[in-house]
């Protein structure tokens, strides 16, 4: 038996000299390195550059590197930036609230009233189709509906309900929030559904067996259990609504210059890249915070869109 350790050592020398852990590490590197490099070059570095720009300033169309928080202070104190951020946040919040309100009944029906797996899958596709349908077309559609010669106005006019087109319908806050709500509702549905789906039938049956009415079951079982999904959906809806810039340009009024329009303007017109970058940094930070806030809920609601 004394020969065993020697032989073992010999076989270890023969066997490529790699321990199991080393082999695992090598395989991991094989899979992870290319994407990690890609993310580093095309995400991390650009974000760092953005950060770098945001800390500097422009002088006579030339960029001067600096480490100053001046741009950030400007965003939160100088008009119009501060009020635009506030307004964007309000729009995002309204979008999140309205999307959730519209989404809940659909998610509820899908999770509690549809019995066959096939029907639920069909419904799933039905909900996700508008989500992936062309964004521009969706915004455009509302423009044709709400415009002064659009469907609503021409319908009401021909019915004689109004004598001249309702102007507030389009190019207003109303149309921006409506369009954003329309665009993000499918996401909210799937987010809430993912959570409702997990409520075991037996739990509802137990509540009913204990004498709870439908309203009590909803109020005391279903609603509390669906909150993580509502929250996860709300956070993402808010974040996307907050950062949307196309809808305000196409259906918003002149005062609806939302945050990204400013980014665009800064890049395209005044070329004040440091300030634009600072706005970008604020949004990335906000998204990261929101993602973390939603993280605890995310563990239970894994929405795939």
């Amino acid at each position, binding site marked *: 038996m004394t020969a065993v350790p020697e032989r073992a050592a010999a076989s270890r020398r023969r066997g490529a000299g790699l321990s199991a852990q080393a082999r695992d590490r090598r395989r991991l590197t094989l899979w992870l390195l290319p994407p990690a490099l890609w993310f580093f070059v095309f995400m991390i570095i650009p974000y760092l550059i953005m950060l770098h720009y945001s800390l500097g300033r422009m002088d006579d169309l030339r960029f001067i590197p600096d480490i100053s928080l001046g741009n950030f202070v400007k965003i939160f104190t100088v008009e119009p930036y501060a009020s635009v951020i506030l307004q964007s946040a309000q729009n995002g919040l309204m979008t999140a609230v309205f999307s959730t309100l519209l989404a809940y009944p659909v998610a509820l029906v899908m999770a*509690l009233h549809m019995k066959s797996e096939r029907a639920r899958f069909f419904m799933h596709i039905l909900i996700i189709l508008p989500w992936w*349908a062309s964004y521009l077309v969706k915004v455009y559609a509302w423009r044709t509906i709400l415009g002064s010669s659009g469907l609503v106005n*021409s319908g009401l006019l021909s019915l004689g309900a109004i004598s001249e087109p309702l102007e507030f319908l389009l190019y207003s806050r109303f149309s921006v929030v409506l369009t954003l709500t329309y665009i993000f509702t499918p996401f909210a549905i799937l987010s809430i559904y993912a959570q409702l789906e997990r409520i075991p039938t037996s739990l509802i049956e137990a509540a009913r067996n204990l004498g709870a009415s439908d309203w009590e079951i909803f109020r005391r079982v279903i609603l509390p259990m669906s909150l993580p999904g509502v929250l996860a959906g709300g956070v993402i809806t808010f974040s996307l609504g907050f950062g949307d810039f196309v809808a305000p340009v196409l259906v918003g009024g002149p005062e609806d210059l939302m945050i990204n329009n400013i980014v665009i303007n800064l890049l395209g017109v005044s070329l004040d890249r440091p300030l634009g970058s600072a706005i970008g940094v604020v949004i990335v930070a906000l998204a990261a915070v929101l993602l973390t806030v939603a993280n605890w809920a995310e563990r239970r609601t894994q929405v795939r869109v």
Partner: protein
Amino acid sequence: MRQVGSPALMWSLAGAVMAFLYLPIALVVLFSFNSGESLGLPFEGFSLRWYGEVLENRQILRAALNAFLVAIASTVVAVVFGLPTAIALDRYDFPGKSVFRRIVLLPIVLPGIITGVALLGFFVMMRIPLSLWTIILGLGTALICIVVTEVFARLQQVGRSQAEAARNLGANEIEIFFRVTLPAISSALIGAMLIAFSIALDELAITYLLTGRDNTLPMQLWSMLRRQVTPEINAIATLVVLVSLVLVTVGMVLSRGRGRRGP
């Protein structure tokens, strides 16, 4: 019994929301067949006139072709880097995994414009001129997360035992990938590719910022929408919606439908 609430009430509420989701798109499709000059009412008669005009507009066709090329290339980028990411996330634990995962998934939450602004700064600094290639890089990066989420979910569903069985039978890493892993995830991968492709086809924010001299279809649409709108646009919109709906439906059925019923 799982039902809560009056079925009639719940179904009609849900039905109303679904109608809200579909009516606007349906109207655009409907009016694309309107023979008259107006964008909305009155509907003057059924005609394919506007489709004919679209197909004769060289500028639009050129932009559509560019959009297809860009979408194909950025889908390839998304797969080449998304697939290994999903495999690494599924199989291994490594330091910084949760941070890495969050960076990968960030584009889902982040407005596309931010990815665009960041990359624009990068290209400017690197003195890389904007072109279709820069759009491809930007869209490809943003779409990686689609491939990662779809493929990762399938890998989790398939479990590790098939790969372990293959290894136990003597397969090396390459044989495991091509003979076991790839067949197991192929439908999810194809589904993710179709979805990524359809997003790339009409993504605007990243495209807007990274476009050089050559326009793609979303840019063309965008500039048409900002100017006075002609009925032609209904026809283009219908075609765009049609293409993305077909791609997404097929993609969804492939990536999730079969996986659910599978053994």
